[in-house]
């Protein structure tokens, strides 16, 4: 009685487009130049902090010799989340707040890739708040850069979960009344294994943070202050020496594996300290799943997939 109207079919890859020559790769592929990495021209407002995060992502790709096919950039929805269009590489512009689970799917299916996720504070801590906690605690191998501007940019100035009390937005015209989330502190409490804080006005620092995140075996989170010049001008002046503020690094004697100390540091009054606040080596979700698989695959070694399935069917006779 077996009836399959739609059986397996080998699929064409790219239709008529795939007729061109595919040049061989040189032995030692040169690092990509900025020009090769840049895609669409960013649609951000002039002066938006997000430009510097993008520029530093390009620099990371160049310095770490990541090639086009391996560039995997995922984002949710928001001004900052338009990121993937501006990068020449595989990218996804997903739905609001769900970039992390999407990226988790990619990360678990593709151990050969390092997925970078970019997004805003609303995307990360409001609509996506629960995903943030769970991705952090599961320690999924990927890097998450939240471009925190303390406001909803794309939807034009509503209160965000990181807006400070008193911030006058279109939804709190008299000033925000609810206490904001402290992203770094929340990340540590949720079980993230790499938590850093940076700011768009210090390119060298952003680069250092991304560079370290790329090497982290697990979930790496960077809270990058990124000014919304349109709706929250001057929000981070206190962290910008050129505007009379202070940019202070995490003290050298801070033990990054000490969770209590890290939470205390993360909790300092703004602008607080910048750098890696917390970093521990724990098995990533990816590694844990691979261990489970290795254990089960050892039991079926040398068997074809259909033979493994046949074992189950034999038990159901």
């Amino acid at each position, binding site marked *: 009685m077996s009836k399959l109207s739609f059986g397996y079919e080998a699929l064409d*890859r790219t239709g008529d487009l*795939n007729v061109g020559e595919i040049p061989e790769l040189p032995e030692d592929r040169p690092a990509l130049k900025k020009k090769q990495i840049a895609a669409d021209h960013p649609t951000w407002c002039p002066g938006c902090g997000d430009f510097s995060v993008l520029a530093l992502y390009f620099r990371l790709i160049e310095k770490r010799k990541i090639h086009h096919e391996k560039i995997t950039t995922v984002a949710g929805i928001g001004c900052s989340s338009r990121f993937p269009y501006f990068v020449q590489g595989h990218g996804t512009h997903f*739905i609001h707040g769900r970039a992390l689970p999407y990226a988790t799917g990619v990360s678990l299916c593709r151990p050969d890739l390092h997925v970078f996720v970019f997004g805003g504070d609303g995307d990360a801590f409001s609509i996506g708040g629960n995903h943030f906690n769970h991705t952090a605690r599961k320690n999924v191998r990927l890097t998450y850069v939240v471009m925190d501007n303390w406001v909803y940019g794309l939807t034009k100035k509503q209160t965000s979960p990181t807006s400070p009390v008193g911030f006058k937005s279109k939804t709190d015209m008299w000033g925000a009344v609810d206490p904001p989330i402290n992203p770094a502190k929340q990340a540590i409490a949720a079980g993230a294994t790499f938590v850093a804080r940076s700011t768009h006005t210090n390119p060298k620092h952003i680069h250092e943070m991304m560079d370290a995140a790329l090497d982290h075996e697990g979930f790496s989170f960077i809270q990058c202050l990124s000014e919304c010049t349109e709706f929250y001008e001057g929000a981070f002046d206190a962290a910008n020496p050129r505007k009379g503020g202070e940019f202070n690094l995490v003290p050298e004697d801070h033990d990054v594996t000490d969770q209590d100390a890290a939470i205390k540091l993360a909790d300092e009054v703004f602008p607080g300290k910048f750098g890696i606040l917390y970093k521990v080596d724990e098995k990533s979700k990816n590694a844990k799943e691979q261990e489970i*698989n290795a254990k089960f695959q050892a039991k079926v070694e040398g068997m074809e997939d259909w033979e493994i399935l046949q074992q189950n069917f034999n038990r159901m006779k």
Partner: protein
Amino acid sequence: MSESTTAAPDSSERKTSEISEAVIRIAGNSQDGIQAIGGFLARLAGRSEQDVMTFMTIPSTISGGPSIFQVRIGTGEILSSGDEADVLLAFYQHSYENHINFVKKSGIVLYDSDHVEPSEEHQKNYRHVGVAVSSLTVEAIGGSARDKGKNIFALGLITRMFDLNVEKLKKLIAERFKGKPESITTTAHNAFDAGYAQDVGNLVDLYEFEEPDGKLSNQVVMNGNEALAYGLIAAGVRFGAGYPITPWSDIMELLRRELPKYGGTFMQCEDEIASVSMAIGGSWGGRVAVTGSSGPGIALKAEAIGWAIMAEVPLVVVDVQRGGPSTGMPTSVEQSDLNIAVFGGHGDSPRVVIAPAHVEDAFYTAIEAVNIARKYSVPVILLTDQAIATRIEAFAEPNLKELCQDISPDLSAVADHKPYDLDANDGITRHLAPGTRVASGKYPVLTGLEHDEMGHPTSSRELHMDMQTKRRRKLQALRESFPATQVYGPDEGNILVVGWGSSQGPIREAVDRMRGAGESVSAIHIRYLNPLPDKLDEIFSGFHHVVVVELNDEGLNGYGQLAQLLRAKYADPKIQSICKTDGLTWRIGEIVERIHGFEAAQK
């Protein structure tokens, strides 16, 4: 019971009758292990080249409560779990009282005389046999027998009554307790022997099944959730994500347990939104992925499914329908998610919806769903239901060697790539998994914004119209490839019954019964619910009435969900509805009665 011959009574007045099928209903509490008795009987039937179908009700509370398991075993093809029971085995007074009406006139009521006080009235209509199941079990195996052992004792009793194969059953019992201490199997065997030793033959007839005709050799026995999950594995699915909800959970639990053997993974997520998102991410990563849920969880997935339709990403979404809306009736069956499956999205979001008809079909439909998702780069909603999910059927063992597919991603480099190519064959998108080199250096973006052919956002009205057409056109191309809809019965007559999903068996049996009585009735089964197959109007034109039989409410306009779809497509006032929402599958008699009622109303 269909008795064909009646053997001569022997000296002690007992007789053994040869039967072609029997319906046995076991009623007790869920913690009595009655599901296990049913499971053993079903598996035995599978091994004995008989056809079998089961039906059960489970309380939705953890602490248990009244529960039944019904098995219909037979030599010929079994289409439904049976309207009436030949034998009722009642463990408690409530089981006795609530289920005796399901017993055929002159059927047999076996009851636990330790708990049941039979009524005089019922004793006139049914043959009653009391066996002190509880105390005899305690006698045989010790302990309190409150929860354990009674079921196996009862299995022995039934085995004796139907002359079932003792050796095979004892082997099944041993297999069930494999890996547990030896003493557990011994105790179970003792309980079985004690039940078997009860000479019920003194009191009632003994039955013997006709010799099977050999058509049903090599069968496997499983429930619909298992069949569906194994179908996904055979199709090559190696990644999925979900969140627990009855009755979907079994599928995710099975995939979580099995996929690691194949190097795959199934993730339990924080919620349904995360799980659909994760599955879509996995699909983009190159592994056509599955997510699933039941009612409320499907509602949560709607936004992300819309994204996958817009971005044209393959995805399989399993919806094991249960009674709704909201938490509804979690352990009852309904076909009331057709609307959300077909329309559950914002904007114009064409997707594929297919529904399996029975347990075997769940296996093959899962493979088809994966292949359609993959070939048409589109979400496919696999609309099964609680009845298929939980019932056990025996079916011909699939040829796994032939069916198992490898759908690993192809990461070889391409010269150039345009994911949303408007000139592509039938408008079908093919994505490259990340990791694939594009020699031109121009890479695609997947997006939920309306986009150009490279996936870059656009606000061009023309492009929006063109892309919308593209997303629709590919499903129209899919429809072209559907096999022609077959009519069950003659293609002309008075009434055409239209059904979908798990109602197929009961509808066919009802048609058989009515035709047997000289009535002019045929049926069609609709497996592809979106897009609907073409040319149904040609079939409709052969009949005076088209009656859609489905397990959902007739709604504000008087039509069930499929009936509304068909009326929208064909604008044919001939299309009418027969609906119900009592949480149970159709009984044959019920369909017949409702059709007669419909006919009467036409006059």
